[in-house]
């Protein structure tokens, strides 16, 4: 019998992230690169180890190859421990057949045997598409103090945006009396962050009940939480202060990256007391050339910059050749921006090549119809030919021939 773990975390990483289009064509959303050297999943994993949670189950389902490879044995996050650590949990076959994960709750239900091995008092449910730094131990302390069955982290959003979120209506003591999914007229601005702490005995009971209900979609937000509230369980909201962003869309992914260039945004990744850990790319320092101009940008290892950068985020091993201009854009690992090319308001994915003189994306002020403007995206390994023009909001998945 191994020692008990007080609290373990389950990270829902199985979603496709279809609103990231070509960026999740070959990788699951949590493995999408973020912030010049990270992948999205680095944030919840680092939060776990920094909060003293050393046992994490990562539930995968959608093209997990890159994600599995990336997590490995969890060394970069200090999660390669003898007992506990990080475990990748795909769906599996049983004697009586097997199922894909039908919903978020079903994914946890199918992994009850994993959770029971650690005999935890509490289980934290996390998702793999948020950028934030949170001390889950503070949330757990609040959960214990309130003697709650479930604690939900909430984030105050502007009232005018509240109708886009799942809103929690609470009493003064923080206890929840109503869930309001995307309300037309919001009564509160406390949006659910999709981060839950459950007392495990309660959660197991409701997961098992939910599984019996054939009409259920087996989803936390739609089924488990409302059922618990209806049954009169103590459910409380825990307010999170700080930076939090859902990066499930191209626009929000781009914005969250650009937030790193804004000193007013409270997301400090240089804090030695709350490191965001990541798998190191093992590359030499970057080189800034004789004619380069670099302004307000973030640059990772292994880059060679001979052109100009302004409001740019460069991941490891990116090349920006002479005369090339990168502005308001994200260039993912290994991409090459050839001489004289322009990349503006764009995301260039891993190992893509932007040919000489090509123009990717448009500045918003140069687009007459604002509805036609958006971030241009060039997919993994795509070759954009010399001199070609990629308009705003484009989603390039195939090679583009050179312009004549």
């Amino acid at each position: 019998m191994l020692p008990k773990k007080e609290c373990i975390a389950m990270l829902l990483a199985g979603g496709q992230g279809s609103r990231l289009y070509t960026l999740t064509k070959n990788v699951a959303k949590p493995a999408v690169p973020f912030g010049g050297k990270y992948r999205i999943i680095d944030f919840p994993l680092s939060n776990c180890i920094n909060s003293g949670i050393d046992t994490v189950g990562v539930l995968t389902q959608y093209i997990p190859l890159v994600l599995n490879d990336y997590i490995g044995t969890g060394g970069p996050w200090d999660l390669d421990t003898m007992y506990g650590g990080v475990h990748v949990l795909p769906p599996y076959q049983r004697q009586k057949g097997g199922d894909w994960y039908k919903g978020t709750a079903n994914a946890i239900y199918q992994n009850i045997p994993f959770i029971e091995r650690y005999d935890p008092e509490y289980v934290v449910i996390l998702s793999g598409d948020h950028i934030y730094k949170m001390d889950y131990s503070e949330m757990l302390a609040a959960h214990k103090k309130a003697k709650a069955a479930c604690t939900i982290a909430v984030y105050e959003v502007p009232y005018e945006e509240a109708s886009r979120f799942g809103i929690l209506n609470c009493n003064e003591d923080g206890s929840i009396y109503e869930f309001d999914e995307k309300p037309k007229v919001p009564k509160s601005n406390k949006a659910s962050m999709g981060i839950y702490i459950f007392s495990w005995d309660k959660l197991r009971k409701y997961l098992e009940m939910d599984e019996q209900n054939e009409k259920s979609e087996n989803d936390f937000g739609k089924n488990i939480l409302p059922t618990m509230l209806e049954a009169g369980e103590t459910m409380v909201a825990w307010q999170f202060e700080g930076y939090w962003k859902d990066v499930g869309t191209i626009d929000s992914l781009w914005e969250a990256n650009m937030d790193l260039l804004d000193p007013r945004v409270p997301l400090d990744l240089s804090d030695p007391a709350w490191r965001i850990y990541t798998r190191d790319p093992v590359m030499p320092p970057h080189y800034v050339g004789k004619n380069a101009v670099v302004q307000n940008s973030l640059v990772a290892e292994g880059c060679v910059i001979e052109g100009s950068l302004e409001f740019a985020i460069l991941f490891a091993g990116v090349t920006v050749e002479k005369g090339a201009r990168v502005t308001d854009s994200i260039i993912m690992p290994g991409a090459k921006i050839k001489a004289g090319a322009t990349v503006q308001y764009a995301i260039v994915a891993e190992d893509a090549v932007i040919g000489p003189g090509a123009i990717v994306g448009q500045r918003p002020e140069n687009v007459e119809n604002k509805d036609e403007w958006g971030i241009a995206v060039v997919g993994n390994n795509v070759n954009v030919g010399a001199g070609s023009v990629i308009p705003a909001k484009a989603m390039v998945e195939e090679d583009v021939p050179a312009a004549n």
Partner: protein
Amino acid sequence: MTGNNVVGIIFSNMHDDKLRELTDIRTMGSVPFGGRYRTIDFALSNLVNSGITKVGVITKSNFQSLMDHLGSGKAWDLSRKHEGLFILPPFGFNNSVYQGRVEALDGIRNFLSQCKEDYVVMGDCHVVHTMDLRPVIADHIAKNADITMVYKNSEMPEALPEKITIEMGRNRRVTDILLQGASEGKVNWGMGVYVITKEFLLKVVAEAMARNRLDFVRDVLQRSCGECRVFGYKYEGFAAVLGSMKSYFEYSMELLKGDVRSDLFPMSRPVYTKVRDEMPTRFGLGSKVVNSIIADGCLIEGEVENCILFRGVKIGKGAKLKNCIIMQDSEVGNNVNLNYVVADKDVVFKDGRSMMGFESYPVYISKGVEV
């Protein structure tokens, strides 16, 4: 047997005295070089990238920072059940530590005897290079050699502490080894990288110790070169010889050349180092960076030209740096003016300070000093 029948030996303290400023608080192996590395990273990565998974690091003194850097050897994939990294602290010699290479090798006699490997690759840390050792080892085995000396054909580096030149006959068989030999024009100078058959090494070290002949070059290499099978192997790439502060500065600045960088950091042979989990470097509005090498975790708001910035360096607004090497976590305040300055770790330049060195004599500021 796992591995490729070769054990690596790195001398981490050899010629510490040549770089006295930088090795005052550390070993030659832990001297910072190239923006994010310690010199030993190159030696270790060369071995690991050549398939050698058993490495002994010989230490002598001041090796605390080296131990901290190496840890379990995980960053080099040398934290293993079979083989891996072995730190070999000094072994007592009549109540004092070893003096030269022969005594040091005698001190690790037990380690070497217990190795199942038949060949030993030895290297130092003060000559920094990226080398594929597999062809050197293959050549050593094919020639049934006792010793294979790796040499480079170029002008004798002024800063090389052991100025060895070799002369070769047919099949690159070494016919003569000269100390402080001809220094005019191109010579074949020994880089301090040797492949030696283990049994032979143990034998010659025992003989040298028994006769109190403790000079590796004179008593082992030179004596061997007639009767034993000593061969040369030519290395063609870049080699930095860190034998003086001047040479440290010059070779560091060589890294600003693209061809030197691609030689020292080829994509296929990554140089591993301890990971610090720093964020990418931030360039502020109004920063101006030209012809410089910048590691991760820096925050640059001033002007930087022909510089090498290590991890976590901060450059304040209005600061102007030219031809400087600033080591990890040092902070340069606002409006600071620096030219030809080498600042060690954790140095703080307060706002408005000014400091000028000269190309042949860069100013060195030691670790943790507040200017």
